[in-house]
């Protein structure tokens, strides 16, 4: 009697494991859907997408694809496909016509991509992307500290590349990894904070951009973006946010 009951339990556990496995198993990425199917799926995901022309299919990773497209109204949108649970599905559509950061790997800064799909009506010449960390200094708990400023630049010629995906430069990833390593302070409670003077990094890094327009072209009006866990925003910067050392 007891043996039989045990057998039933074991079979149930195995069955449950198989079901869970097949419901969450991603499998090997298959071929991308046809352009027409991609358009249908983009429009199903977001009714505002109204996609008409797919400009390209840019592979970010084996499982993630960036789809720059143009809508019937001429808006230049960005769509993202992910291979999940054995099929390609749309996970994000953005119609703001502003660049953003796509995170393909949360554990490594090198898994971040700046993506853009620029509308030629904007007469944009160039994107200047910046990795910034503010300078900081002072004394905390009797310990002097100084955090050097980080200001690293990468330029993208928008006339030549009206849309694209650019991974963070290796140098950005290198300095970001260094910062992350320091940020991993062991979990602490209130008592710890009273007795130990753990000094925590007071400033953090961010990525921003400065759009450069052709002579006489007007700047953009404002537009808003809605988020997602795999999306990070780019700050719009001004010339005066940047340091410009004179030699």
């Amino acid at each position, binding site marked *: 009697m007891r043996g039989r009951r045990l057998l039933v339990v074991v079979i149930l556990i195995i069955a449950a494991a198989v079901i869970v496995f097949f419901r969450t198993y991603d499998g090997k990425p298959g071929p991308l859907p046809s352009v027409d199917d991609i358009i249908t799926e983009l429009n199903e995901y977001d009714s505002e997408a109204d996609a008409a022309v797919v400009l390209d299919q840019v592979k970010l990773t084996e499982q993630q694809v960036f789809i720059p497209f143009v809508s019937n109204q001429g808006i230049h949108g960005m769509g993202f496909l992910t291979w999940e649970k054995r099929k390609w599905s749309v996970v994000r559509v953005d119609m703001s016509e502003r660049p953003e950061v796509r995170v393909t790997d949360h554990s490594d800064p090198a898994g971040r991509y700046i993506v853009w799909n620029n509308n030629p009506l904007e007469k944009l010449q160039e994107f200047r992307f910046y990795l910034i960390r503010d300078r900081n200094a002072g004394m905390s708990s009797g*310990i002097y500290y100084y*955090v050097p400023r980080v200001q690293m630049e990468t330029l993208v010629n928008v006339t030549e590349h009206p849309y694209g995906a650019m991974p963070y430069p290796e*140098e950005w990833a290198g300095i970001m*990894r260094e910062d992350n390593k320091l940020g991993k302070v062991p979990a602490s409670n209130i008592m710890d904070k009273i*007795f130990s003077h753990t*000094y925590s990094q007071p400033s953090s890094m961010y990525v921003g951009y400065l759009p450069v327009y052709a002579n006489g072209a007007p700047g953009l009006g404002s537009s808003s973006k809605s988020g997602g866990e795999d999306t990070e925003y780019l700050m719009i910067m001004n010339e005066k946010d940047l*340091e410009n*050392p004179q*030699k």
Partner: protein
Amino acid sequence: MQLDWHYSWNVVDAAAGLLGWLVVLGLVIFQRQKQETRRPIWKILLVTLAGFFSLSFKIPLFGQIVNIALLPLGLWIAYLLLRKRSWTDYRKFAWIGFAANYVLLVTTLLAGPIYGSLFDRNDPSTYLAHLEKAKLVAIHPSAGEATFEKKLFSSTLAEVKASDMAGTLDWYRESLLEDGTQYQQERFPYALVGAEARWGSGLHASAYLEADGKGLLLATKDRYYYYRSEEPMLRMEVRE
């Protein structure tokens, strides 16, 4: 799967913890042999583990932060659950579990001086021991052309002297104020990324180099270190 690929672990602490738990395990086995009614070992270990949980607080002692166990919470819970049944057989194991807090306290206190004799926190080469993967990155537009040469860096690193950091706010102001001598220039425009600390130290520092190539700033979790060298630590290109 998020593997902590850059986690450098502290070998001395790990060994001290292992030693402590081996002592506790020895005490448990010794006590079990002594008792007449021998309960199953997994239940005994469970009660011991329960006894380990306690209300504790941390104080700095001999330059370390140590955990002092105060109230045997786990032991009380075990007592409430077992008092009507087999508490007499398990009582001693719960107390061994509580005592484990103090066994670990002793091994931690022993580990401190051993760690100190193996690793010098004030020596920059502790943090920059492995330079095979190290790369120099210009982090600011004011950085001039400079190249990192492992040989040159290592030999100058051995000669650096700890320097005063009391002027950090002045450094900050010089870069920020329009009439500052370093206006919009970064004092430390280079970062050395990918260097690794001595194996087993569990330490990590971000390293920055000064504009003249002669200063080294290390940022660690607990504090900053600043060193100056007589000679440039990088191969500096001469500016026009």
